[in-house]
Every structure is written in C-alpha cells, then in structure tokens.
C-alpha cells in the first residue's frame, strides 16, 4: 500500500548521517545506539505493518538525562525524532521516517515505587502496562486502563495514545489514571508535571501531554493511580437475534442506572472468528453477542446480574450464559481479547477505530456493512458498546494491492461515517499517520490551527514525530 504519504527525507540530514551518529555516540553508551541496517529493521514499523521506513538510527537510553541529551542534540541538529514505546500502535504512531532518529524507552522499564496508602505507582515509561498490574496484584490492586495489547505495550505509549480498554466504561482511560509525568522537551529541559496528588495547579499541561502522540516531548517516568480490585468479577454472554436489540438492551441497562465494568459487542462474523480460535462457548445461532461484566461480592454480582438479565429478556435476548467458574470467565474474555489475533489467522485485516454516539449503532452497523460490501470485502465488528468505540476489522488479501487499497478506502469511509453521526475519528488508537489526512473531516481550519499552535509551543521546529496527527500541508507556528 502506498496511499499514505510520508514527507520526503531531507537529503541534507541523510548526507550527514555519519556525523549525526558520531554525535549520538558521544552521548550514550555504545549498547544504546543502533545503527546497522539489520538491527534498525525491527524499528521500521509498528503494528500498522503495511507501512515501513528505515530510521536513520535508533537510540535506547537508560536514563532521563540520556533522553535529554539526545533530544537536545537532535533539536540543535534539526534532526526529526520519533519517540517509541513497544511499537504496538495501530495508527502508525511509532513508524519512523528515513531522516529521523527513533528514541525508544524500552530499556527504561523499572517500577520505581509503589505507595499503597496513597494508591499510586511511580514507573519508568518503558514498563509494560500489564507489568504494573502484575507488580501490585498480590496486594489486590491493579492499574485500570487495559488495552488488549497490555502484555506488550508500554506506559509511555499508553500516555502517547491515551489508551483505553474494555473496562474503561467504569474506570476511564489513561488520562483519568495518570497523575504525573517526567517530560523531556526538545530543548533538553526536564519538567515534572503533576505528582502523587490529584489535581494540578495551574494549566492542566498533563492533560495535554496524554494523547499527544509523541509530539510534545518524551515521557520518561509516570505516576499512575493504582486501584483496589473488586472482590470478584463475572462476565455474562448474551446472544441477541439482531444487533438492534443488543443495542437497545445496552441503552436500557444504562438507562436503569447500571454501569457494568464492561460491555463488549461482537457481530456474527466476529463471533465465528473468535469462537473458532478460542473455543469460548460463544453461541453460534445469534446475530450479536454482548459480553457484560459486573464486579463486587457474589451477592452484589447476583443482584446486578439479575437486573441486567431481566432487561436483556425485555429486549428479546436469545441466549444467556453466566460464567460459573474462573476458567469460564477467562475463556469468555479470551475470545474477545484475541479478536485481532484470531482474525489475523483467517485473513489480513485493517482494524479501524472510531467512536459513535451509541444511539446511532443500528444505523452505523447497517451503513458499515453496505460500505464494505460496496468494495466487495467483508467486515467483522467488535467494539466497546458502553462507550460507542467501534473496531470494524476489514478483511482483505494483502498480496492483492487493489484489494488492499479498497480495504483502506472502506476504512476511511467508515471513519467519515463516524464523524457524520456525531462521533470521532479515533477512540483509542490515535491518529498517527493513518488518520492524519482525515483530520479535516472532524476539524475545521481554525480548530486545527489552534491545536498546531499549541503543539508548536513545545516544538517550534516541528521535529517531534513530525509526520503524524496533522496534515502535512498548512502547518503553523506558535
């Protein structure tokens, strides 16, 4: 595929490659600097693997000071920088360009401090999302944002993308769970923003950093909230004869004042794909599946589920399957959480990520199906029903360039549809390179220019992850 444009690499930077590498070598230990082509390869793409560019060099610092020295150097030399966590971005957020230095935080993966009394953990940015929970689990605590990639993705990348997960209906996304960061700016200055306390004094710059996709600086440490886990959690499967009924049941549950911790929706193609892979016991004779999870003591869960089941029955539920054991619960979630991987086994796919007002769900499902069929392709849908975050998986054959282009076009049409019904281009995966050129669909020029002027306050030279988020033309200064 070649639909998404990359800026042409600056030949003056390419010509100075040796000199730039020598400069970097003076700042970090040899093991932290990667220059050979073989070793740079793993950094040429992220989870948006259809696009790749070999970076000029890769630096993997071990300390905030090293990050500061490298950033300052790149700033002075006018060399673009691409911050990288684990490289699991699905929007191409961590894909480099040929004239850029990748600065990866993967070596900075220590948990620095855990403070149960104040319910915070201080971690380095390269620690994985799941490692934070792993560290505090024995005490009954967890870190709430749970992207499906949580085994691999880093806290720094989560902050870059403001990542969410299945449980954010109750617990919020990254921005609601980070209290402080250490940020290194392009001029090498190191700032502490926030801390172990709840609200920042002054402007909420932390709120701006979260979700800024590596455009404002590099996060090297973060203070995150850790929460005490509920006594128990139980998912229930609901099979509905139509998507409309499933959607109405979701609305009625919320209308009744019940906020489950998770409400996940899968359509028929997604059910088939996931069941074939995970053998989770999903019903095969329904059009739509909801996985609704509740939390609390056994008695509390029983009471809440009784209400939810009653509402589901009022909306024509066909199958109700309550998990009877931890193993069954794990299987139910395994089916859902492996949706991407399972789909990957049967076809190539593009995973889109847009958000819609949930009331528009039946209309959007219908239109999406029409759009994708219009391109002669198939789509499987999994999404977070409580908050309207869609993940259509558009299936195609990547060895067929025509089909690949169609898949991409269908995805873009779906995102336009999301905006048209009052939603947005991305709910959790970010803009990256993937949706950069659609930003004009959601924002007008004044909106975008305001964002770009704020961006330029941190990076007047547009060197930080410069090919991402904003259309390549029409960039503005502070």
């Amino acid at each position, binding site marked *: 595929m070649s639909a998404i444009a990359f800026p042409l690499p600056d030949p003056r930077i390419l010509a100075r490659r040796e000199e730039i590498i020598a400069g970097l070598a003076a700042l970090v230990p040899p093991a932290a600097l990667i220059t050979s082509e073989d070793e740079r390869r793993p950094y040429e793409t992220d989870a948006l693997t259809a696009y790749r560019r070999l970076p000029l060099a890769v630096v993997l610092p071990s300390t905030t000071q090293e990050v500061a020295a490298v950033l300052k150097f790149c700033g002075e030399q006018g060399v673009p920088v691409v911050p990288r966590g684990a490289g699991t971005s699905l929007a191409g957020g961590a894909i480099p360009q040929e004239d850029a230095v990748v600065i990866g935080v993967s070596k900075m993966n220590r948990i620095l401090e855990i403070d149960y*009394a104040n319910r915070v953990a201080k971690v380095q940015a390269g620690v994985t999302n799941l490692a934070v929970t792993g560290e505090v689990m024995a005490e009954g605590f967890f870190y709430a944002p749970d992207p499906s990639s949580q085994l691999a993705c880093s806290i720094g990348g989560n902050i870059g993308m403001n990542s969410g997960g299945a449980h954010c209906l109750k617990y919020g996304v990254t921005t609601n769970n980070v209290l402080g960061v250490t940020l290194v700016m392009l001029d090498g200055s190191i*700032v502490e923003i926030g801390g172990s306390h709840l609200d920042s004094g002054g402007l909420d710059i932390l709120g701006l950093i979260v979700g800024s996709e590596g455009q404002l600086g590099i996060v090297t440490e973060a203070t995150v909230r850790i929460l005490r886990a509920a006594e128990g959690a139980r998912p229930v499967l609901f099979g509905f004869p139509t998507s409309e009924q499933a959607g109405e049941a979701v609305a009625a549950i919320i209308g009744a004042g019940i906020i489950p911790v998770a409400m996940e929706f899968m359509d028929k193609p997604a059910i088939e794909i996931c069941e074939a892979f995970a053998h989770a016991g999903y019903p095969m004779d329904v059009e739509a599946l909801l996985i609704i999870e509740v939390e609390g003591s056994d008695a509390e869960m029983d009471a809440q589920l009784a209400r939810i089941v009653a509402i589901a029955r009022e909306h024509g539920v066909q199958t109700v399957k309550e998990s009877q054991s931890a193993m069954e619960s794990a299987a139910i979630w395994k089916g859902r959480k492996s949706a991407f991987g399972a789909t990957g086994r049967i076809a190539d796919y593009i995973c889109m990520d847009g958000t819609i007002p949930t009331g528009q769900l039946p209309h959007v499902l219908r239109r999406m199906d029409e759009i994708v069929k219009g391109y002669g392709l198939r789509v499987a849908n999994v999404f977070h029903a409580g908050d309207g975050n869609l993940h259509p998986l558009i299936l195609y054959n990547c060895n067929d360039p025509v089909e690949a282009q169609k898949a991409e076009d269908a995805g873009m049409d779906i995102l336009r549809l999301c905006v048209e019904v009052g939603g947005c281009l991305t709910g959790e995966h970010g803009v990256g390179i993937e949706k950069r050129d659609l930003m004009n669909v959601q924002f007008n020029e004044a909106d975008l220019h305001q964002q770009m002027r704020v961006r330029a306050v941190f990076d007047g030279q547009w060197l930080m992850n410069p090919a991402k988020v904003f259309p390549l033309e029409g960039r503005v200064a502070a």
Partner: protein
Amino acid sequence: MTLHTPSSEADACAFIASAATARTPLALVGGGTRAGLGRPTQTERSLSSAGLTGITLYEPSEMVIGARAGTPLAEVQKTLADRGQMLPFEPMDHRALLRTSGEPTIGAIAAGNISGPRRINAGAARDSLIGIRLVNGKGEAIKSGGRVMKNVTGLDLVKLVAGSFGTLGFLTEVIFRVLPVPERVVTLVWRGLSDEAGVALLSSALGSPFEPMAAAHLPAGIDADHARTLLRLENFSVSIEYRRAELATLLNCHGAPELIEGAASGALWQGVRDARFFAGSQEAVWRLSLAPTNGPKAMAAIARALQQARWYYDWGGGLVWLAVPAVGDAGAATIRGAIRPLGGHATLVRAPDAIRASVPVFEPMSGPLQRVTAGIKASFDPAGIFEPGRMYAGV
C-alpha cells in the same frame, strides 16, 4: 466597567475580534458571581455568557449532556435529576465561602475545573468534560472533543481549557459525561481520631474493595467539638448493606462507626464540599493538593508556625482546606515551604485583594513550565486580552 452579553457565538466572535484589535482586556464572567478568585485583574470590560443559555443535547442512555456556557448549573442539575442522573464530580458552590450571590453557570464549572468530594472516585470536572466550544483570543470559534466519551482525535484541548479560569478563551458550549444517581447514600462516621489516624483510616478504606465515593476528616473544632472521620458509600441498597458491614469490620481498630443518612448526611457533605466551615470568618482560605498521607505531615509543620490555623481534609487526606489569619502574606511562605519537600501545591482561594496582588495565588512554576504556560496562553490569546494576569503575572 461595561458589560457585553452576546446572544450568539458569532456575536461573541465579533466582539472578541474587535477587543483583540484594540487590545482591550476582558473579564469573562458566567453568572458574574466572581469577585475574588485568582489574582486581581485590571479589566475595563466584561464579557458575559449570560446570553448563551439552554441545554443543547441530552441523551440519558448515552450518559451525555451538553449546554451553552451561560446555562445556570441549577438548570443542568435539574434536567439530569429528572432522569435520575447527575454530574459525577459534585461541583463545589463557592458562594458561601466567597460571600457572593448570583447563579453559578455550567461554563464556569468547566473553566474552573470545579470538583467536590466525589472527585476521588468519579474524577474531576476535567475528567467528565468531553467536549467544548470556545472563542479564542483571535475571535475564532474553536471546538475540541465532542459528545462521545472516548476520543483521542488530535490534542486534548478540552483538558487544557478546564481549569484555565477564562485565560484561554470564552467558552460557549460544554459537554459533560454524566452518571446515574445512586439508589442509596450513607455516611459512616468515626469520632475522636487524630489527623494521622483519620487519614490512615481513609487510606485503608480507599484501598479496600468497598469503593467509598467520598472520604473526609474533620479535626476537632471544625463544626463540632470532636474530630469526625467520614466515609460515604453510594450504590444499590444491597451493596450498601454489605459494604458498610465489611468496612466496619475492616476498620474496627478505629472504633465503631455511627451511620447517618438522608438530609443529615447530605448537609454534612455539602459543608465539606463548599468549605462552609470557613464561610463566616474573615480568615484567608487556602486549598492544598497533596498525596493523602502527606496531608497530616504538611499540617503538622504548618500548625507549628501558624498557630491560629484551622483546617480539614477531603479527598482521603489529599485536599486540605486551610484557614489562616488574613495578615501579611497569609502564611504563603510557611505553607508553600511546608509543601515543597512533599510535592503538591497550594492555591489561595480567599483573601483581600491586597494580599492576592502580592502573593502568587497559584503555585509558582519551574522555569520551563512557566515558558510553556506563557506560550500556551499566547497561542490561544495572542493579544493577551482574556483575564490578563488572573492566574500568573503575564499570563
């Protein structure tokens, strides 16, 4: 002082554009109840959101409400209550503390990031604020966020504007995520604990699976002769019964709690939320944000130096409301000195103009953050017309 009250966003744009050309400083007002917040500013003209009213969007099943900025908060709350919903962050009402009257507006709640006791569990106003429309200092109407809860499209200017106190732009519309009103609310009260013991109790409770939605400690002398440590539970009745029993067991080393409910519980938390205990006095009032267990540590140090200080804790110990005599620097040097080694910040909420003009009202920042803050201000408001100097000199 002249007041302009636009009746549409377009009108606001035109007015602000001409003010920018003339470099006329503007005070931005909602209900106009503002008198003493932030640093005193010199503005000849005010721009009011009073003409921009009305709910623009309400979808109970999507848990979202939108309103024009000048809509009275009370109207938003009534609309939600009619459908069994509420603003999750329990916004504080400053009128008693600041001795002002008038109608708080929903736009100012967003502009001030104003949250109450439920903040520890349900997040701050900024966490529920999902979309804004505002007019920047060039007179351009801008939007950020939207009506859906999950949105990572572009930079999150919503957060930046929440808590900017009118210094970045004139809000015309705000959209919040809402929650259902709980079926039942009860408060557990322990008596006679020291600050350390009270906050330790709150920490254990907040580190338990029983989800207290609010947690405060009122030392002796704050509205009663004895200290009170408060935990609020909100849920379906079955959960309340179970959780209060579990909490009483978990925390029985601190004694047995008393249970209050209904109006008595509501009034107590309203007092905590609105800092009513300091409403009738002439003292200067500070608001300290700290890691919860640092609250008592900071207060021990401050109390040694400022012997007439009175204080209480919300947010599990992490929010301290502190009243000190309104003389000299109102304790600024002592208070900020005590916080510095612990992390956190202090904001001077109430004090005579003369003190607020000479003491930084918001916590002073490091050099690089100051530059970023000034840069952000300039990026929204290049002519520097909105509430100049309200948060920081020059911003």
